[in-house]
């Protein structure tokens, strides 16, 4: 698609940073950069689609909930907005270990969008502009500005690309194919070419979404009701838990059946996935219903979650049945599901294809290795999900600002946060599908809990300048209280009094033979911090979040210590930095595959190098020795 503009002109308003896109990545990036004092302008193809949720109506979920907490701990916005706009909330995996507890909230989509837009509009230093960006302008490998479809040039010192699924987007179902972004929004068809001409390697990914069905046509009596938690825990560390105890809306559970699968199987040849009409690579973790029926043919039913999209809409999201089958097949298949017999579709299910990048072209700061001042975040980087996008947007925004401040970029490493795992995976590992966060990707997940995101990251947020003095002081106070209470638990002796034995037997816990400490009792699986209150005479009332930390840290001490030792080893390799001007071809003993991979990726540290596939431990040893002699020589 070529076009030419005759009316090139330069907009003389002064901007430091341009953000391209206003999705979940773009919003966090723009807010961070503006809050750090830089004149920021955020471009979007439609101002009405700011912070849009074009797919599922929730924020959080397993491991994604962690990301939201981390974004909040660093001074990002997502957690605060969802706390004000959710309509149902659950702590997932609450019967499992604390590492995998994860918050997930149903969002009122329209309210979420509105609320985020309100925050953006009131943000100092931030302008919002509806216009498609078509050109990235550089000089000598440095960002100088951007150009819009209308021909206007905006000068700036850094650009953050958060184009989501909009680049050359195409929506497909059956034989129908439309050149639009999600929800029928205008796609961005020109930026890809500009990026390619800058030498950036592009991928084409695919994802999909299920149909939305009119609530009034659903028979909920045939479904199981799924209620929210009794006691709601907010996402943001700044939200008062009392403020989120709202009346909740239910979700509903139903199932596909043999008939549904029959309909799908009979129409597979009409699916663009199977006919080859879709060329992009789809995610394995988010298979369409036709994928599931084919791949897991032994299952005779699949779960279907019916989720409300908001309070002021009758649209219901049909979770578990995303599809790109033709419209008539969609009707037949949805209507074969109990409760959906008379369902009327408001929006079709569809697959969407879009351009994104091979994120290995980025540094860990999310700046392009080859273009100074160009940053990117979100689905553009090959990830998927609102939360993954927000996390990257925030880091890209912070680092673009720090670049202009002349400061070194912030890198959260794999031992500090899910954000670190996410970004490191994206910039280090080859991926052929949209990347989704999962708890199994985090090596040190016992340390990276959603409950301690503030203890892990808020200091960094404070250093960066996104966390205010009061929040920082509160954090130090909390840290201190936890430390003191753990100490007290470790040093408070408990004798074998009748009262103690009685308490133990009431929890079916073995009676004491000799004295012990409160901490040792907490370590017993059947006991808890709360359970010991009657025999803990000097206990003072502590806030809930402090008690939680005390309990987790004592109860899982063995595992936590073990992971901390692993982290020490990890940090040693992470701290061995590799100069970017190394010529790997000069290192004779490296195997050829290792040479190629290392030259291509230019890892920033020995740790990162060791995570590149095709680089062996022996290559790492060789590299260590080479670096040592390199540093001695220079």
């Amino acid at each position, binding site marked *: 698609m070529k076009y030419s503009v005759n009316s090139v002109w330069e907009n003389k308003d002064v901007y430091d940073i341009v953000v391209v896109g206003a999705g979940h990545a773009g919003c966090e990036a723009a807010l961070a950069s503006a809050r750090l004092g830089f004149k920021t302008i955020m471009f979007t193809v439609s101002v009405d689609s700011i912070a849009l949720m074009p797919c599922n109506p929730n924020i959080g979920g397993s491991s994604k909930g962690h990301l939201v907490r981390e974004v909040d701990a660093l001074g990002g916005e997502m957690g605060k907005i969802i706390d004000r706009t959710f309509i149902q909330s659950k702590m997932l995996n609450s019967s499992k270990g604390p590492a995998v507890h994860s918050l997930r909230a149903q969002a009122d989509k329209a309210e979420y969008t509105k609320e985020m837009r309100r925050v953006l509009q009131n943000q100092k230093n931030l302008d919002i502009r509806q216009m498609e960006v078509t050109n990235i302008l550089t000089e000598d490998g440095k960002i100088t500005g951007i150009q819009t479809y209308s021909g206007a040039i905006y000068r700036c010192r850094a650009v953050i690309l958060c184009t989501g699924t909009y680049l050359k987007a195409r929506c497909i179902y059956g034989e129908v194919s439309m050149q639009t972004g999600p929800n029928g929004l205008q796609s961005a068809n020109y930026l890809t070419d500009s990026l390619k001409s800058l030498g950036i390697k592009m991928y084409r990914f695919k994802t999909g979404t299920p149909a939305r069905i009119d609530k009034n046509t659903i028979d909920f009596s045939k479904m199981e009701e799924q209620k929210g938690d009794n006691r709601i825990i907010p996402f943001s560390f700044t939200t008062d838990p009392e403020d989120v105890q709202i009346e909740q809306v239910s979700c509903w559970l139903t199932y596909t059946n043999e008939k549904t699968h029959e309909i799908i199987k009979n129409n597979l040849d009409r699916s663009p996935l199977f006919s080859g009409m879709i060329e992009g690579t789809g995610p394995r973790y*988010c298979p369409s219903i036709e994928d599931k029926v084919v791949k897991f043919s032994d299952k005779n039913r699949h779960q279907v979650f019916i989720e409300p999209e908001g309070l002021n809409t009758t649209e219901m999201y049909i979770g578990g049945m995303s599809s790109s089958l033709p419209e008539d097949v969609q009707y037949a298949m949805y209507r074969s599901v109990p409760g959906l017999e008379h369902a009327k579709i408001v929006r079709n299910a569809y697959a969407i294809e879009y351009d994104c990048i091979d994120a290995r072209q980025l540094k860990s700061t999310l700046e392009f290795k080859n273009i100074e001042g160009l940053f990117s975040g979100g689905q553009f980087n090959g990830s998927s999900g609102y939360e993954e996008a927000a996390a990257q947007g925030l880091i890209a925004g912070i680092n673009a600002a720090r670049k202009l401040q002349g400061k070194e970029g912030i890198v959260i490493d794999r031992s500090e946060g899910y954000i670190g795992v996410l970004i490191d995976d994206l910039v280090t590992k080859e991926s052929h599908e949209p990347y989704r966060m*999962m708890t199994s*990707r985090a090596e040190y997940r016992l340390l990276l809990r959603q409950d301690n995101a503030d203890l892990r990251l808020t200091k960094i947020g404070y250093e960066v300048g996104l966390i205010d003095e009061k929040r920082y002081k509160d954090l130090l106070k909390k840290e201190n209280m936890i430390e003191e209470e753990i100490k007290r638990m470790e040093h408070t002796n408990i004798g074998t009094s009748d009262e103690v034995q009685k308490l133990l037997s009431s929890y079916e816990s073995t009676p004491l033979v000799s004295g012990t400490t409160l901490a040792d009792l907490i370590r017993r699986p059947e006991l808890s911090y709360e359970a010991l209150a009657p025999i803990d005479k000097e206990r003072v009332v502590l806030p809930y979040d402090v008690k939680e930390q005390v309990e987790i840290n004592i109860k899982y001490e063995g*595992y936590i210590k073990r992971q901390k030792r692993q982290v020490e080893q990890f940090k040693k*390799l992470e701290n061995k930095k590799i100069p970017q001007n190394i010529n790997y071809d000069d290192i*004779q*003993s490296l195997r050829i595959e290792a040479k190629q991979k290392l030259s291509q990726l230019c890892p920033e540290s020995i740790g990162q190098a060791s995570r590149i596939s095709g680089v062996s431990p022996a290559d790492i040893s060789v590299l260590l020795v080479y670096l040592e002699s390199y540093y001695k*020589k220079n």
Partner: protein
Amino acid sequence: MKKDTIAAISTGMTNSGIGIVRISGDEAFKVIDRIYTGKEILSKADSHTIHYGYIKRNRDIIDEVLVTVMKAPKTFTGEDTVEINCHGGIFVIQKILETVLENGARTAEPGEFTKRAFLNGKMDLSQAEAVIDVIQSKNEYALKSSISQLKGSIRRKIEDIRKEILYHTAFIETALDDPEHISVDGYGERLRKTVEEIKIELKKLISSSDNGRIMKEGIQTVIVGKPNAGKSSLLNVLSGKERAIVTDIEGTTRDILEEQIQIQGLNLNIIDTAGIRDTEDIIEKMGVEKAKEYVKDADLVLYVADVSRSLDENDEKILNLVYNKKTIILLNKSDLESVITKQDMKEKINKIISKSISDGKDISSKIPMIDISAKEEQGIQEFEEILKKMFIKGNLSFNDEIYITNLRQKSALKEALKSLEKVTESIYKKMPEDFYSIDLMDAYEALGSITGETIGEDLINEIFSKFCMGK
């Protein structure tokens, strides 16, 4: 870089003289204190002193030893270093190293002492290249040997166990990532049974590694000779069921037969090669080239000569290959009419050597020669006697890298077992399911180090391929 404590045998694995086990790292003294009994506590001894005492494993004395204590930084590696000088028997050195490993050290990676010496500034910058080469070549060798020496049946077993572990971990992880679709409640009971079964398998593997049956450990022996000299019949005699243990070994090429044989308590990996002669036949030529390669890497060469035919240029070619190896010449077909004698063979050897070496000493007399008849099974006993003598005199030795690899693999098996014991403990204690998968993955990783596989995206791939996730 890692600063943990490493250990290795720093002398060759021969049955002679003195053996040295070297320990280096922050905890070197702690380790020796746990296993050494003598007049002094070695961590308190002066640096660069030698001490007489005993090494004990549990309560048994393994050996009478001299221990050298050297404190950082004036040591080869620049770290605290302990050297245990023991009696040189292979069995004793092995036991001492194992004891050291059980008490807080880990096996050194190939070239790791040298690497540490360099990184701690104990070596000249100009030596960097050499250090790098040592690391890479030793690693290549170790990797090659660890994978190629692993018995096929053991490898399959380990792979099966890994598959099982991965499956269960993936199930748990899927449930954690998608709790609304998949429930892992009560899974501990099912997992407990599987883990118990795997633990029994691992224990079997560990005890078989004590008997050296994990690795194709033993003397790499190659049989060479002209076509039809009787190589295969010799192999058949040697591997006859009444006197030897025969194992099928996977991965042999169609031209090379390989068997593991025990003779006089020694393990021999015998490789039968294609006959060596000038040939235009491509396939046969490849076989011959391969035979030459095997001879190069062999610990022992058995040259089978046919005494019913006269020596020709093909025999010369073979002698050229083998005269500077540990070789036994077997003059086969003594039951037939001989046209050549031991004397003829000696003259031939001396002729060849004088061609290649100027002062040709009488090397031929150092190469043992035996008259045998593979067909009549004559001379076999004499052959076994000679073999035993060569080994005891230290002329023959195991390849020590292979032994070290075996030990490393044994440690990995033990590590995997330990992780699985933690899983059992977590299940027993009713810990949440996510704790199981942490230890399961540790076991998976430890076992992978034996088969030379890294984890990479295994878990993620398993999750997606075996389980149906939501959305």
